[in-house]
């Protein structure tokens, strides 16, 4: 049997409903909320600020430090143990790597930009959701970046290339009876939309080379959609500042730099 209709009724290259908002955490220098289907991520950015422990400082440029954390109640089943684990440490590291290529911290030697990503609800694709929220929060914090980063998971389930898998699809043979091809692959991808460069690529499962290429092509257009949502959310926060005509030039003494 083939997989003809997705578990939640979407098209095969359709994303889950996305919601995004900026400036959700008042005390942070930048913050964002990003929701894909039932996965919800909050990101808070603090800094640039003095880095501790001091031996981790870099005298050449600022350091980006991301922390991924699933909240205890965020999973579908048992309590998730929060704090560093083998998994969350790895995801923190790949998130940092996905974002560090766009941020420009050359003006901030010895300083650190801390990004805290908290997942309050998870249903697969949490690292992608975290990266999307973190990119928005970094831009909101006024950090120089050459572009935003957008991420989405693509994959292979029931002999079909699928975009933005949810939990059921990641474990498809458990949910759909009598599949001919029981292979499932999950490929989180993060891209820099303006250049198409890939800053995160992981894979979990069994998959052919042709399918990976097909999946990556689908990821590209999905990422363009995610990126659009991110940009609109950022602009919305400052929507009132889009003024027809001119701003108040007379007082612009020393504005900007």
């Amino acid at each position, binding site marked *: 049997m083939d997989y003809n209709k997705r578990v939640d009724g979407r098209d095969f290259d359709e994303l889950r409903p996305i919601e995004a908002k900026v400036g959700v955490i008042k005390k942070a220098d930048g913050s964002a909320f990003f929701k894909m289907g039932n996965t919800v991520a909050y990101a808070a950015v603090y800094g640039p600020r003095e880095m501790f422990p001091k031996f981790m400082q870099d*005298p050449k440029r600022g350091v980006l430090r991301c922390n991924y954390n699933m909240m205890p109640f965020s999973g579908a089943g048992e309590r998730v143990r929060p704090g560093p684990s083998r998994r969350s440490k790895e995801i923190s590291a790949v998130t940092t790597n996905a974002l560090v290529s766009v941020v420009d911290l050359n003006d901030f030697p*010895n300083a650190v930009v801390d990004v805290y990503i908290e997942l309050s609800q998870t249903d697969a694709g949490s690292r992608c959701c975290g990266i999307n929220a973190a990119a928005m929060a970094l*831009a909101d914090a006024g950090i120089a*970046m050459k572009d935003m980063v957008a991420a989405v998971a693509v994959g292979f389930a029931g002999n079909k290339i699928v975009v933005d898998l949810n939990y059921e699809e990641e474990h498809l043979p458990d949910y759909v009876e009598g599949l001919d091809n029981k292979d499932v692959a999950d490929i989180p991808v993060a891209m820099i939309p303006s250049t198409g460069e890939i800053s995160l690529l992981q894979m979990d499962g069994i998959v052919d080379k042709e399918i990976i290429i097909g999946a990556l092509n689908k990821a590209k257009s999905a990422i363009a959609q995610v990126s659009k949502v991110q*940009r609109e959310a950022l602009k919305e926060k400052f929507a009132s*500042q889009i003024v027809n005509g001119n701003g108040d030039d007379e007082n612009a003494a020393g*504005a*900007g730099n």
Partner: protein
Amino acid sequence: MSLLVKDKQVVVPGDVLADDLGFIPGFGTYRNNNNLMCSRLGIVNMEGKVIKVIPLSGRYLPRRNDVVIGRVFDILMMGWRININSPYSAVLSSKETQDFIEKNEDLSRYFDLDDHLVCKVTNVTSQNLVDVTVREQGLRKLRGGRIIHVNTHKVPRIIGKKGSMVSMIKQATNCRIIVGQNGLIWIDGEPEKENIAVEAIRKIEDESHIPGLTERMKTHLEGITGVKLVFDEGDYNGLQ
């Protein structure tokens, strides 16, 4: 030659501002092949062919000759370490005070922990080590009053052209006000008047992008205080 954004539009990192070589990249922008891209969240500002992005958020980075308000958070052998609301702390040397301080003297007699100072940045190194001084007229320890935090990028609007905006608030409320470039503002006066000043500053922060700010603030302040205000562009040295 084509420009893809309007002047004063909000842009986010990665937005394409123009797609040919006819424009010159200014602050907050960079060139990617033929495209002129945005690298900061901010507002587009066109000056002839130069496109720059004025940031809307971000921490304060100290620059020489900025008047800032800082808090003493550590006492060193030969001076004080001062938090200037920036990623980097500043050092005030004991030689940079108005009094002569003997060697081995107890520095907390001059400035103690948690004292607030108005000081001027004298030097910033490439590694962002910051030196400040209080050895100029008007620079001192702040006694009484209150301190509020504002967005550093709104400070130029709060000061106004040649200090016109602060001097207007001062006239209306009879408060003493010092605006630090780092986003800390010290206000001292009668408590109710202080409240009016704080409210006015918050209003400027919220509405700085809407045209006619000065006029609006004038009517706002005159309406509340009933003081007839004279618009004044004096010699502003960051203090007064």
